[in-house]
């Protein structure tokens, strides 16, 4: 078996006496697409924030390529949020170029001349890949919700991060647009061999999109003190294998899940 890209060793997350996540022992290979599902407030976001670096585990460690994750966000991890991912003062092209400019010019964060031309070509290529070739010169507030998410994906992918994190990326989109976005992300994942972690509250989205599903839930509940026990990965399902989907989840997949109010 190859060396895993992400490893979690006995990871706990607690806020004072409030245990959010407990006993996470997981490893993920490069190229996997992990969907993380679970009820709201069960720690999905804490898990993602730990992968992102904005929060750190209370106990245990998360390893990326065998090294402990740094405790602040960096280039190894790309992120697409539900919204506000794009910079409103830059047009689509400049938004995608920004990542390259940051690494090329530590002092100004801006490059000129032939270097800029090169960045521009790369960025344009990336915009075409996400289907925004025609909207390169438009500002984010002139783009529809779906186009803004395409832009956010392009922006993250141009840095070629080790892992790509998606935080309910399609939660605010219309169902039709969401279907297009599913197609796009599946295509990008296959073609570029990305490793993706996606949080979603939409179970059917989680099961149809990823190659692996983690279901977060609390296996133990103390009715007197609900914060006493945290959530764990209660099901870790490889979707491409013949592993049987637990019957307790099968009924969840059949019902249409309602998107949460934003």
């Amino acid at each position, binding site marked *: 078996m190859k060396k895993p890209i992400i490893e979690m060793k006995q990871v706990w997350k607690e806020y004072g006496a409030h245990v959010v996540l407990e006993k996470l022992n997981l490893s993920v290979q490069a190229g996997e697409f992990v969907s993380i599902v679970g009820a709201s407030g069960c720690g999905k976001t804490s898990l993602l924030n730990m992968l*992102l670096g*904005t929060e750190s585990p209370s106990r245990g460690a998360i390893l990326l390529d065998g090294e402990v994750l740094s405790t*602040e*966000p*960096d*280039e190894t*991890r*790309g*992120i697409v*949020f539900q*919204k*506000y*991912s794009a*910079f*409103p*003062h830059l*047009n689509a092209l400049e938004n995608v170029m*920004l*990542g390259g*400019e*940051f*690494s090329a010019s*530590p*002092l*100004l*964060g*801006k490059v000129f001349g032939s270097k800029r031309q090169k960045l521009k070509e790369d960025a344009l290529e990336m915009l075409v890949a996400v289907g925004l070739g025609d909207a390169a010169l438009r*500002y*984010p*507030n*002139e783009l*529809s*919700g779906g186009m*803004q998410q395409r832009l*956010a994906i392009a*922006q*993250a992918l141009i*840095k070629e*991060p080790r892992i790509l994190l998606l935080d309910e990326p399609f939660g*605010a989109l219309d169902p039709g647009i969401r279907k297009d976005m599913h197609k796009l992300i599946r295509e990008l994942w296959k073609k570029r061999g990305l490793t993706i972690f996606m949080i979603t509250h939409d179970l059917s989205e989680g099961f149809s999109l990823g190659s692996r599903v983690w279901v977060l839930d609390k296996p133990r509940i103390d009715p007197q003190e609900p914060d006493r026990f945290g959530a764990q990965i209660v099901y870790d399902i490889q979707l491409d294998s013949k592993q049987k989907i637990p019957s307790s989840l099968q009924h969840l997949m059949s019902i249409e899940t309602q998107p949460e109010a*934003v």
Partner: protein
Amino acid sequence: MRLMNSKPSRSIRLVLTLLPFVLLVIVYTLASDARLLENPSDKLLPAWSSFYDAIQRMAFEPSKRSGDYLLWVDTWASLQRLLLGVGISALIGLVLGVLNGMLPIMRVTFSPLITAISLIPPMAILPVLFIVFGLGELSKVMLIIIGISPILIRDLQMRTQSLPSEQLIKAQTLGANSWQIMIRVVLPQVLPPLFSAVRLTLGSAWLFLIAGEAIAATEGLGYRIFLIRRYLAMDVILPYVIWIALLAFVMDALLRLFSNRAFPWYHGKRGEE
């Protein structure tokens, strides 16, 4: 139709806009005529012809004493102080506001101090300024700076802090350091709010300018008004006041136009959600 739903047409809107101004002029003319009929040397409500003479005298004839064209000398002196004061304040507001908003270490250190300073009425420390900085230009510019820069700093700090955290995290995942995020992500986004904040504080800036000039100056719009007050020279005071209002209006309009031009992404339609 409900009153709240009825929108006037273009021509009616123009008439309605002008109406209060026209009424004001008519009322003034009637009142002025009535007073002058009773006492031709009345100074309180001068006739339009006296205004014309006064403007002619102040703006287009050299002063008998100094040979200067007083209105322009006064305007130039006041504008210099105002622009210097407002410009320096805007710079201070931008730098400290962004630093305070972005860096927790700066915020913890300076934010309470700035709040405390902003609670001091600037006019109360005007004597201190005159004592410390003398009666020259510096004290008047300082009064404007002390008066409006705390407001600008606090506003810019709030604008910086209200940038969505998603954006700042995104920038970090693109490999930016704090400095790059400051100049490429934060600064461009708080410039348009800086312009609106400056427009809003312009009124206070004028207030502090006139107050400073009234107390110690040898030229300036505020100085002139307070000087000729002794002669009840309403024929000069009122045109000066209108001239000040006009200057303030032009400045406000220029700032608005520039902001619209320079930041189309900010003034364009907001996001679709």
